[in-house]
């Protein structure tokens, strides 16, 4: 088998909401969607990016001394960062003593990742835990993902893939043999609105979901509930109807919108696209889960 590497931006041990049991989640970098509410903006670009949390800077100056491009400097004894000069080499993040700088995006080989993923093997064994690949969009790096999943399955580790579904079906076929569960995002049933808000059509996403359902694989549908976008009764009902039409039953996990990731946009120097709406209240969430329930769809908490 070819030795594959991929671009990842995080590895989270003790991930408890990314599939069953205790899991380690590998976050793959790069995503074709542009969801305004995205809470992993560091996963959107396929290239490495530097995050700078200004409030954590203690002015130690370590970054200034290691940066080859003079992206860090002091002005009136205050640390400044010129993102235009930054090549995201990551030297400053390594040196930073205040944990203000962090590099998102590093190339990791499957060989290097495997021992890290196996460290928590014993924790996976209780309650069907394992490893989840998430992102970004996992299927943008399908070669890397499929090799990693295959290696995990060879170790008898439970595997899950968290996907937007926006990928050629062929990409799915590559990972299908090694993926035991899919966490599949469903954001809006209306194609026009989907295109307008997220930037891509939902046809491929829904078609892939139908085909995936036909394979009999375990699927958990993840619905980010964004007030004003997909929380109205008619939209929820349309989603439920679509899910009921699938060949095999799915469960639904409702992910209420929150804006806790807003700081990440600023730290990455990105335009903050997060909606200025409050999180949905418990009544709204109950109404949504009741609608799914009324259509025979189980909502996991």
């Amino acid at each position, binding site marked *: 088998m070819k030795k594959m590497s991929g671009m990842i931006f995080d590895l*989270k*041990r*003790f991930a*408890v*909401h990314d599939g*069953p*049991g*205790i899991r380690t989640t590998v976050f793959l970098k790069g995503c074709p969607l542009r969801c305004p509410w995205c809470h992993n903006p560091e996963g959107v670009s396929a290239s490495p990016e530097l995050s700078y949390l200004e409030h954590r800077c*203690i002015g*130690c100056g*370590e970054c200034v001394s290691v940066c080859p491009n003079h992206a860090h400097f002091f002005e009136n004894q205050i640390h400044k960062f010129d993102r235009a000069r930054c090549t995201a080499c990551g030297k400053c993040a390594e040196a930073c*003593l*205040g*944990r203000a700088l962090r590099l998102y995006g590093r190339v990791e080989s499957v060989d290097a990742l495997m021992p890290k993923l196996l*460290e*928590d093997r*014993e*924790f996976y064994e*209780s*309650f069907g*835990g394992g490893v989840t690949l998430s992102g970004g969009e996992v299927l943008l790096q399908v070669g890397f993902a499929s090799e990693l999943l295959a290696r995990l399955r060879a170790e008898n580790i439970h595997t899950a893939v968290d996907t937007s579904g926006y990928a050629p079906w062929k990409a799915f076929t590559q990972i299908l043999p090694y993926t035991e569960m899919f966490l599949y995002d469903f954001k809006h049933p209306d194609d026009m609105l989907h295109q307008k808000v997220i930037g891509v059509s939902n046809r491929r996403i829904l078609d892939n979901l139908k085909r995936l359902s036909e394979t009999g694989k375990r699927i958990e549908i993840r619905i980010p509930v964004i007030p004003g976008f997909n929380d109205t009764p008619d939209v929820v009902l349309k989603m439920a109807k679509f899910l009921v039409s699938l060949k095999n039953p799915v469960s639904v996990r409702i992910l209420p919108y929150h804006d806790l990731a807003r700081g990440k946009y600023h730290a990455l120097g990105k335009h903050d696209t997060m909606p200025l709406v409050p999180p949905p209240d418990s009544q709204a969430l109950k109404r949504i889960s009741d609608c799914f329930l009324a259509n025979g769809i189980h909502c*996991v*908490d």
Partner: protein
Amino acid sequence: MKIVSSFDKDREYLTEKFRNPSLLPEDSGIPNEDILPRLQELAMQDLDQSMFLAKARLFKFFAENMRIDVNEHDWFPALCCFMHAKRPMSEGIAPRVEAYLKREMPDLLERFTQGFETGVERLWIDYDHSAPDWDSIFSLGFSGLLKRIRHYHRLHRDNGTLNEESEDFFRGMEIVYETILATIDRTIQYGRTHAPEQPRVQEICASLTRLRNGTAENFYDAMMQIYLYFIFCEQVDHIQVRSIHVDELLEPYFQRDIAAGILSEDDVRELLKYFLMQWVSINHAMGNPLYFGGTNPDGSCKISRISYLIMEEYAKLNVPTPKMQIKLDDNTPSNFVDLCLDAIRHGRNSIVFINEQAIRRNMLELGYSPDEARDFDVTGCYEYAVKNGGENVTQSIHCNLLKMVELALNDGVDPATGKVCGIRTGTAETLASFSDFHHAFIKQLKYRLEEICRCADRFEANLQRIYPTLVHSGTIEHSLQVAQDAYSTGSLYNTTMLLCVGFATTVDALMAVKEFVYDRKVVTLSELRDICRTDWKGHEKLRLQVLKSPNKFGNNVKEVDFFAGRLAGFLGNAINLRPNARGGFYIASSHPAYQFIELGTRTGATPDGRHAGEEMSKNISPTIGMDRNGVTALIQSAISIDSARLPGNFTLDVMLHPSSVQGSDGLQAMHALLDVYRKHNGNALQFNIFDEKMLRDAQKHPEKYAELQVRVCGWNVRFNDLPTSEQNAYIERAGKIVE
């Protein structure tokens, strides 16, 4: 039995019962504030009299004169209603104890303060960890216990095996138990004359009468028996009854009353609330423990229906005490564990899991029998002892492990006081390799352990002359057979626990010396010594580099965990099974009680990046915020150590963010963490579910968070009751939880 639901109405009284003496009727005795001076006056009379008789005499005065009450707001009488910290018997006799120590062991008193001043050790006389023989209490009752004491007294007299001291021991117990019976009589009399028309008061009096003359006949009596024993022992012996196997004790009575239709489950729930509230009102700073479960001889679990009812009612009460200890094994019903985990994630942090498999293994290795190892009592915070009073375990001595690093750096001198409190192991300039430094550390530690044990042996040999335990000993047949106080030498096993304080911080400090002095040569050892002496002044960058290093215990870093294992191994070899002065032995423990803070304030800056005076790590847990690889890595580090090296206690504090324990996934995750820790013989595990934002808000708006609890070290407190400095430590800790 008619139980009218009235708890909500009575809750305020129940909370105040032990805290507010003005609730006690004036005609029932002398005011609380007059009791203490009278006791102190009495205590200093007849100084030639033995402590056995002096204590008995004091208790008689106390019991005959204290105010009492039986009223319709409670199902239990008001007896010995004093603030826990101001127990008059303990304070009353204190001058006599001090006079005894001054007369007999003057150097010891000095040692108690000196070792604490330099922070190398903390020594005290521990009377806080008794586990009585509940079987005897329940099968004999107070009157039966008195009969048995008299029987053995006679037997020894007839056999000629009494000396002056043991004669006083028996006489003291007899006076105390006679006084207990007389106090119950007085209480019954008070209830009958003051509230003859009150049905609940008459039920209380009827139960007291049954227990005065015999043993518990029903579920309510059984609760009353536990309560009365606790209250009397707490006052007379100063001993907190640190072991109550609550579900096992109540279960047969519960079954019988339900089957006979005497009580419904709702009635039981109502009574349980009143029962639990007694400890809420007593409000002991370190909590009073109740424990659950265990393994029957046939291998089945002791968790029963009553276990569920108690836990459910406890969760509803939302109180920091009593603290609940759950014995856990393969046989523990999953849904009971889930019930406890669910309570924990909803803020009932005062629940700890005790691993039966690990403790069985420890006990077998230390030479206990398989039966003793199967069915042990849980005591104190998460310690254990041979069931039914088979063992007393004192926790008198604490050794500050981190201080040994400081002494190794400073050639045996405490830099803050200039006192030589270690041995000369060479100046920093002469320690050329990490091996030299580590050797110096071990030599300091070895010397200190010898010193501490020698000192402990001196006062432990005289425990019964200093502070005998007359109520407790009266329950232990072995103590009566050998005519020795049960908390001294009269138990089958008389064990001394040596508490090793600051385990993980010590490992971190050693690793920092290795990495920054010897491996990377960033700084010399003498420079590091001087930097620590000045509390890192002018070297903040270096301090941050040290803090940033991943070489900290709790991150599953192999080399660090190796050194942690080596330290545990050394402690185990040096301490476990070392003979003590009471015919028993020592065992090592990583439990620091409150000393991770107290001794921390007396320890200078240390190589791990810690500032002078900051607290140290507790139990087998990492230094605050140094476990940066998540909870699974933390557990891997802990279980890489053989827990049998620290058999007294090997508890891990696991801090989780509320978001990671939400929903059914969250519950499963907590369960899985527990499973792995348990399979690898971790002794005990306690969860703290923290949210930094919530703690900050609670500090700002305490009125919104009246019931918010945090786990200190084997006990819970309300967040609002903590001083700001400790609140800040919790906020800092919460901020470092890896979500």
